[in-house]
């Protein structure tokens, strides 16, 4: 596809997502309309009220119900969207597993915010980490532009015949959701063409091959949400794992196709000055932008620093990460969530697994930061990189887990 002319609009992350979803125009948007809901759904409901979309908008009594409504809509063959944050995602937990196990390609945007208690509305990744093993694809965005782009790409990834899994698009609370940014948007018809219609895969039901949707006419009958015991359940879980592995390829393919259209290429990871790096900062989300500035400053001071931002946290791009960090001496893994009592933060556990059992790998340290929206500065990242370099020289004493920016 040829490059398309785009418009520049000033929008915050929430608005950018709402704008993308307006262009996609899903059949159903079901969402809980008040706190912890974000402006995404508020803006989208404006579009509905103004008659700019034909979407069926369901303002519903809880997030548990919001996702349940999306499950029903997607099972009937519709495109369904919802958005939530923190406690809302926590309340959805039961239905998260049902959506992914029933292989429903729902798209949900999560504005990453801390979990209670104490009550806090600001950014960290605890909410998404709680959903880590729920079978959803999780894509983390760095800025408003990427949030817009990913909210469009997510449909193609979710609905790909080899994937058929729900996608969570994650963006940092306030840092992205409420920050105004100049972003490039595609014309409506280009978005419509890019996402197309939801393709329905075909499956063998109890009366032969049928499209994957509930058919109220009974002409193409399919029963979903059935019962499977120890003789079948395990096989379905193995299928879900295979779909996740297939998603690795699809995320890259969709990113490439979107890049040809927009000039903005996205893949599983985002590499910044890693080619000759001796120290790499690895993490998720908006703070990796700060880390890139820190890497520039470190290079001015003669330290070869780079940044590896994980965009696809689930599926985790193990081989891509291993390849990207080849030759790096030391790695600082940044976790914006805690696994209380665990050996390290959730991202560190994955990163350690990437290099487990290999004869050679980098020194690796884990830094917990930014909980409840605490800021992290370029100076903090520079100190982290220097600490990681020092550990590579002097060795790591005790647990390789440290806290950045917490008062003693």
């Amino acid at each position, binding site marked *: 596809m040829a490059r398309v002319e785009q418009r520049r609009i000033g929008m915050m992350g929430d608005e950018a997502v709402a704008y993308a979803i307006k262009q996609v125009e899903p059949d159903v948007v079901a969402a809980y309309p008040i706190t912890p809901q974000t402006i995404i759904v508020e803006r989208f409901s404006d579009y509905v009220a103004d008659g700019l979309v034909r979407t069926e908008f369901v303002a519903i009594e809880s997030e548990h119900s919001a996702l349940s409504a999306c499950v029903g809509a997607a099972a009937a063959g519709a495109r369904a969207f919802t958005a939530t944050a923190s406690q809302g995602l926590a309340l959805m937990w039961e239905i998260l597993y049902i959506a992914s196990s029933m292989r429903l390609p729902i798209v949900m945007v999560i504005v990453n915010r801390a979990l209670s208690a104490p009550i806090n509305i600001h950014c960290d990744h605890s909410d998404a980490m709680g959903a880590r093993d729920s079978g959803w694809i999780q894509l983390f965005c760095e800025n408003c532009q990427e949030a817009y782009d990913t909210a469009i790409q997510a449909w193609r990834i979710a609905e790909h015949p080899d994937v058929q899994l729900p996608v969570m698009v994650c963006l940092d609370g306030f840092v992205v959701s409420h920050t105004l940014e100049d972003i490039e948007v595609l014309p409506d018809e280009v978005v419509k063409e890019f996402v197309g219609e939801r393709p329905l895969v075909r499956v063998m*039901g109890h009366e032969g091959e049928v499209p994957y949707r509930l058919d109220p006419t009974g002409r193409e009958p*399919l029963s979903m949400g059935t019962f499977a015991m120890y003789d079948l359940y395990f096989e*379905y879980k193995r299928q879900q794992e295979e779909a996740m592995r297939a998603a690795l390829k699809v995320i890259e393919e969709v990113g490439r196709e979107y890049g040809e259209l927009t000039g903005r290429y996205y893949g599983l990871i985002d590499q910044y000055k890693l080619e000759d790096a001796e120290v790499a900062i690895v993490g998720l989300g908006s703070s990796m932008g700060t880390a890139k500035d820190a890497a520039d400053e470190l290079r001015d001071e003669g330290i070869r620093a780079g940044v590896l931002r994980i965009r696809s946290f689930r599926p985790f791009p193990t081989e891509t990460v291993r390849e990207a960090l080849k030759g790096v001496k030391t790695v600082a893994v940044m976790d914006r969530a805690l696994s209380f009592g665990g050996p390290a933060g959730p991202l560190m556990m994955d990163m350690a697994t990437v290099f487990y059992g290999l004869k050679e790998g980098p020194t690796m340290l884990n830094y917990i930061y930014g909980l409840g929206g605490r800021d992290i500065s370029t100076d903090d990242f520079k100190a982290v990189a220097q600490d990681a370099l020092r550990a590579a020289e002097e060795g790591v004493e005790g647990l390789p887990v440290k806290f950045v920016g917490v008062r003693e």
Partner: protein
Amino acid sequence: MSSSLPGWKELPMGGVAFRPSTDIKTGEWRLGFRPVVKEEKCVGCAMCVVLCPDMAMGLGEEGKAQVNYDYCKGCGICARECPYGAIEMVPE
């Protein structure tokens, strides 16, 4: 597990029903008693047909209650509710 069951590559995705649920003869779960219709007492009112939670009761050609033992779990509701005392639970 049993090799007669499909592997993960063969199974349709998402846990959809891949064979009719009537293939599973739930009557095998019946424990202890089974309903037997005394045709001389049955008037064909079909109360048992309406009340059977497993749709295992029907009316035969003669218009009398008929039990499908493939799906009858032996709960005894039909015998208890029959207004004419035409169904008896018999030990198996």
